[in-house]
């Protein structure tokens, strides 16, 4: 992807964001049908964050996030069939059905998970950046976590080391306002998460995470900072999740009106759609894109449903890399 001086590929952003939204809607549907089990955390409402950030990746850059990870995988270029199959616990899934929604990885696309323990991915993300620095390349690790994780101790252990060793890591805080059912005001003594790096001399900015263009531009600034060897950077993305924390969350901690108001005024896809139409894309062409994406997702769902469960022998595979001994 180009530098901020070049024209941002807004239509590509639109396609990716729509792909994530339609994927998540389908995942919610399959969960309701009992095709997906366990925990399933949907990304609807936050699509602009990962799409804007990921557009600045160069080959070799890494992405790592928490358990709300479906959008990140699709943004990184992972195959919807493989992701959906994993959600349904099938052998064709990215983890052969052994990881599920929260634990998926793709070495080929430099996606390092998919981590189920709140904040555990943050030191790991710094470790990916450590490897970049060790090897002397220009790559950056994009390490995502939420407003809930922001209060975990290991975040600050990581901030300290990342700044001390000038590691090329962009910390993307996806502040979707609720840590499960606890609003940021009720959980954080200081709600300005972008300033949490001040004590470690890490610059931070607050970004409207619902605006993909602003996200993209901030990611360019942050990754440039890292690539120049200046150390880590914090981007706090102000965003909002439309669905509950997970599928089993009735979301009684917020009003219907609050959600509705965000959907009507801040929806990242609808807002981008308006920009595209203003810039000359026809509504008809955008509808065609949506139809195509719906077909892709329907096929992914069918592929997942039709795929076989893992063989029972798979139970004992992949515990160790087999060595000669």
């Amino acid at each position, binding site marked *: 992807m180009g530098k901020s001086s070049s024209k941002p590929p807004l239509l590509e952003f639109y396609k990716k964001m729509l792909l994530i939204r339609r994927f998540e809607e389908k995942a919610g549907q399959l969960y309701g049908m009992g095709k997906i089990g366990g925990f399933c955390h949907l990304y609807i409402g936050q699509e602009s964050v990962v799409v804007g950030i990921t557009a600045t990746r160069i080959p070799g850059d890494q992405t790592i996030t928490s358990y709300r990870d479906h959008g990140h995988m699709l943004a990184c270029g992972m195959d919807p069939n493989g992701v959906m199959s994993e959600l349904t616990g099938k052998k064709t899934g990215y983890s052969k059905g*052994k990881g599920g929604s929260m634990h998926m*990885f793709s070495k080929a696309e430099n996606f390092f998970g998919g981590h189920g323990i709140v904040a555990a991915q943050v030191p790991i993300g710094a*470790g990916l950046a450590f490897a970049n620095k060790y090897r002397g390349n220009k790559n950056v690790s994009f390490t995502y976590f939420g407003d809930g994780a922001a209060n975990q101790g290991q975040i600050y252990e990581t901030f300290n080391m990342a700044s001390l060793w000038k590691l090329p890591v962009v910390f993307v805080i996806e502040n979707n306002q609720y840590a499960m059912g606890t609003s940021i005001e009720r959980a954080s003594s200081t709600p300005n998460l972008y300033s949490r790096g001040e004590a470690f001399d890490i610059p931070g900015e607050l970004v409207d995470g619902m605006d993909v263009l602003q996200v993209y531009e901030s990611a360019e600034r942050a990754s440039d900072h890292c690539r120049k060897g200046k150390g880590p950077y914090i981007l706090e993305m102000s965003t909002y999740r439309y669905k509950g924390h997970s599928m089993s969350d009735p979301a009684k901690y917020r009003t219907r009106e609050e959600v509705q108001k965000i959907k009507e005024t801040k929806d990242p896809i609808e807002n981008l759609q308006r920009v595209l139409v203003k810039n000359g894309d026809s509504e008809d062409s955008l509808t065609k894109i949506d139809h195509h994406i719906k077909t892709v997702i329907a096929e992914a769902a069918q592929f997942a449903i039709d795929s076989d469960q893992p063989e029972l022998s798979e139970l004992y595979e992949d515990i160790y890399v087999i060595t000669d001994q």
Partner: protein
Amino acid sequence: MDDEEILMPALSPTMEEGGIAKWFIKPGDMVKAGDIIAEIETDKAIIEFEATSDCKIKELLVEEGTTEVKVNTPIASLQTETTQTLVSATENKASRTNVTDETKKNITIDPKNSVITHQKEPLITVREAIRDAIAEEMRRDETVFLMGEEVAEYQGAYKVSQGLLEEFGGNRVIDTPITEHGFTGLAAGAAFAGLKPIVEFMTFNFSMQAMDQIINTCAKTLYMSGGQMNCPIVLRGPNGAASQVAAQHSQDFAPWFASVPGLKVVQPFTASDAKGLLKTAIRDPNPVIFLENEILYNDSSASSHLGSDLIPFGQACTIKEGSDVTLISYGIGVKHALDATVLAEKEGISIELIDLRCLRPLDYNTVFSSIKKTNRCVTIEECFPVCSIGNHLSASIMENVFDYLDAPVINCTGKDVPMPYAKNLEIAALPTIEEIQIAIKKVTNRI
């Protein structure tokens, strides 16, 4: 005027002897409290040694450069106008039953296994063995690096990483802040990205801070990723009781880690095994927990000639063959087992002694074959008694070779208490030679 003496001080919980690296005083000098009178070299560091009260030096009893001076040996005499001693006598550290040197003379070590004797080579300590293993693997593979608290400039809290910073530089020998949870996660990330970190925990007690990253990240990611993302990391450091460092610093975590699929767990006894197994650990593409023991770092019973370059995991070592009772142990437990072996054989009981060396994967075949021969078994380890490795072995032996048993298996372990501080209580909290002797007599129906 009373003649007093300065004694070789104990400058660490496990120090048994030291050297006079340098004297700063000569006979006739007047010394004030707080003056530095000598540099004492221990196996961990060179430490400046201060006078604790004003005095006049009469004679230096040990020459500069002398090494291996036992703790509490007089090193200088002095004249003082008070009856205060310059250095208060330190507690005698030699309170553990110590028959291991005798053991080494009496036990013929099986040359087929790892404790091979190449008599031309000098004995090396476990500490040297570990350092050499790290250095050799770092020379061989530039993706291998060492990180941890005080591993670089301080040369290791237990002097294990001595000289490594000088040879490999600060990019590969990395001092971390005191932040186990954070740096273990960071090292795991570096491993996912293809590097091979060796993480030193100053002691495994502090690994508790990092337990989530060890179990949930290092051990499970390969499985959760369907085989895509392996974690080639070595987590190493001293484990188990040291000497009078009490409950929070004295615990053997071997069974905890050994219960987790996805981890490999090693706890060597001899220097040769430490080196060969650590080299294997560093080359292994999986996460390896490498449990050392502070007492064994410089212990003569564990020092050895070097054997095989690489020792495969999952192969126990039959240190000694015998016909009456199988003793199974690992790590420092082997030291106790060796001592018990000498005493048992004096009473005509033939002991077969197995050092497991590796707790995951575990060498069941060697254990079962031995039980089939001796029909009796005692296990020895320092961990807590509930859910010990011995418990697991007892169950496995019962399930697999029950018909060969002539007596119930007895597990000798640490006691079911937090480690106390007082020396006598600490000794009682660990498995004692007497307890092992009783167990051996019980399984042979002698009591």
